[in-house]
């Protein structure tokens, strides 16, 4: 091959060597990935504006001017009524009883401290707005929106030299964001961890790439190997968005018990269920997901009621490090995450495997 197939327009846009984007909530992972020649986006959706500013400063001190991004979950809709306090009184007894049955059956410990959902946001856009102001003031190189359209902030971002990424789960969302001038579209498939759309990664990436013109597309959902990277580029993407891949790496701050569960897990060990939050979400199977999947389980409640139900189980399991109960968001590519490697090695292994894949496909003339 005469042209480096991994040097894409995304690399040129961001000034990076490899078209690999690590989405992580861990600053140490982000720094290691950035200093390896790839790109990292730090998930800050649950952080206060002050915490975000501190995290940006911490990363800047460690990456020698290399670019990075910050991801926020900009809301796209907000209920017109009902406060969290009102909602908490409305959980039906049937579901409360089922939650208590699970806690008794598995001896689920209580959280060490009361779970306060007020601190965790999610019901209005005021937090998103305040978080956004920090990113603009700090002129962070890339702002990524993990859900809602970032179109309204494009002018303000571009005036400050900031690139804006938008994550979509449907082609029509991509079309709207492309028309608005979003710099990069992340097309996320059903294979992904957490809350995903209904389209598979192969379908949505090709679909969005077909309408994207010169705008780079990033493939997200189930990407954990160099072969996935090569396939994504063949589909028309200019890079890949990876999350699960970094959860069990050496620098990750994920609990060691959960890391071991991730390393042992296959795609079959993930569950695409509404039982955690009331919205579809892909996580590692655990007693909570298994019990709510049974025919005798009551109907899952809509958000935020179901999260109110599951929060004690999740927090209690984590506080007491009960490996038999703990879970974590994980995509279908988790089966390829089998070693606790340094993030730098993950980057290099992925690059090498992708190049090998391309050579196998094209029959590198240098080898003949």
């Amino acid at each position, binding site marked *: 091959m005469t042209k480096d197939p991994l040097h894409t327009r995304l690399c040129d846009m961001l000034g990076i060597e490899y078209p690999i984007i690590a989405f992580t*909530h861990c600053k140490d992972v982000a720094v290691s990935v950035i200093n390896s020649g790839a790109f990292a986006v730090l*998930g800050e*959706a*649950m952080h206060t504006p002050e915490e975000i500013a501190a995290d940006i400063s911490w990363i800047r001190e460690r990456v020698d001017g290399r670019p990075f991004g910050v991801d926020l*979950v*900009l*809301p*796209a*809709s*907000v*209920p*017109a*009524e009902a406060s*969290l306090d009102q909602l908490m009184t*409305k959980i039906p007894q049937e579901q409360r009883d089922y939650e208590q049955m699970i806690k008794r059956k598995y001896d689920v410990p209580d959280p060490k401290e009361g779970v306060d*959902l007020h601190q*965790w*946001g*999610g*019901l*209005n*856009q*005021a937090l*998103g*707005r305040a978080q956004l*102001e920090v990113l603009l003031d700090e002129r962070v190189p890339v702002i990524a929106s*993990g*859900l*809602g*359209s970032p179109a*309204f*902030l494009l*002018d*303000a971002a571009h005036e400050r030299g900031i690139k804006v990424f938008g994550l979509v*789960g*449907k082609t*029509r*969302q991509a079309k*709207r*964001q492309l028309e*608005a001038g979003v710099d990069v579209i992340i097309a996320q498939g059903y294979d992904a961890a*957490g*809350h995903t*759309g209904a389209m598979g990664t192969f379908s949505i990436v090709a679909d969005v790439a077909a309408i994207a013109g010169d705008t780079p597309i990033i493939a997200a959902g189930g990407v954990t190997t160099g072969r996935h990277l090569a396939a994504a580029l063949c589909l028309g993407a200019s890079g890949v968005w990876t999350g699960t891949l970094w959860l069990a790496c050496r620098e990750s701050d994920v609990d060691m018990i959960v890391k071991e569960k991730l390393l042992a897990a296959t795609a079959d060990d993930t569950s695409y269920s509404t039982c*955690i*939050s*009331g*919205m*579809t*979400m892909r996580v590692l199977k655990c007693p909570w997901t298994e019990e709510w999947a049974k025919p005798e389980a009551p*109907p899952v*409640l*809509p*958000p*935020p*009621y179901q*999260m109110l139900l*599951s929060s004690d189980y*999740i927090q209690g399991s984590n506080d007491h490090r009960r490996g038999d109960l703990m879970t974590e*968001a994980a995509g279908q590519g988790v089966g390829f995450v089998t070693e606790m490697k340094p993030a730098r090695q993950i980057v290099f292994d992925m690059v090498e495997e992708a190049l090998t894949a391309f050579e196998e496909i094209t029959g590198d003339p240098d080898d003949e």
Partner: protein
Amino acid sequence: MKNEAGGMRPGFDAAMAGKRAECDGGGLVAGTRFAGRQEFTGTLTGDYYDAGDPPWRWYLLRDLTSKPEGFPADAVWCESESIFLVEQR
């Protein structure tokens, strides 16, 4: 969306009033660090808020004919770029 003192500027857009629309909605799920998607279909009232600067516009969608099962409200504020007019599909 009720805090007008917090930089929310209400208005009315007659051109949007009465139009059927779908909203690809959602937001941060309370208690997690993840986004959750929710879809709605209803009728735009024309009421809107512009939040902050640059303005972030939100339209009110009422008479919801489809919403997530058990959704607690009768109406939903939708971010303008997440609204798809039914006639435009």
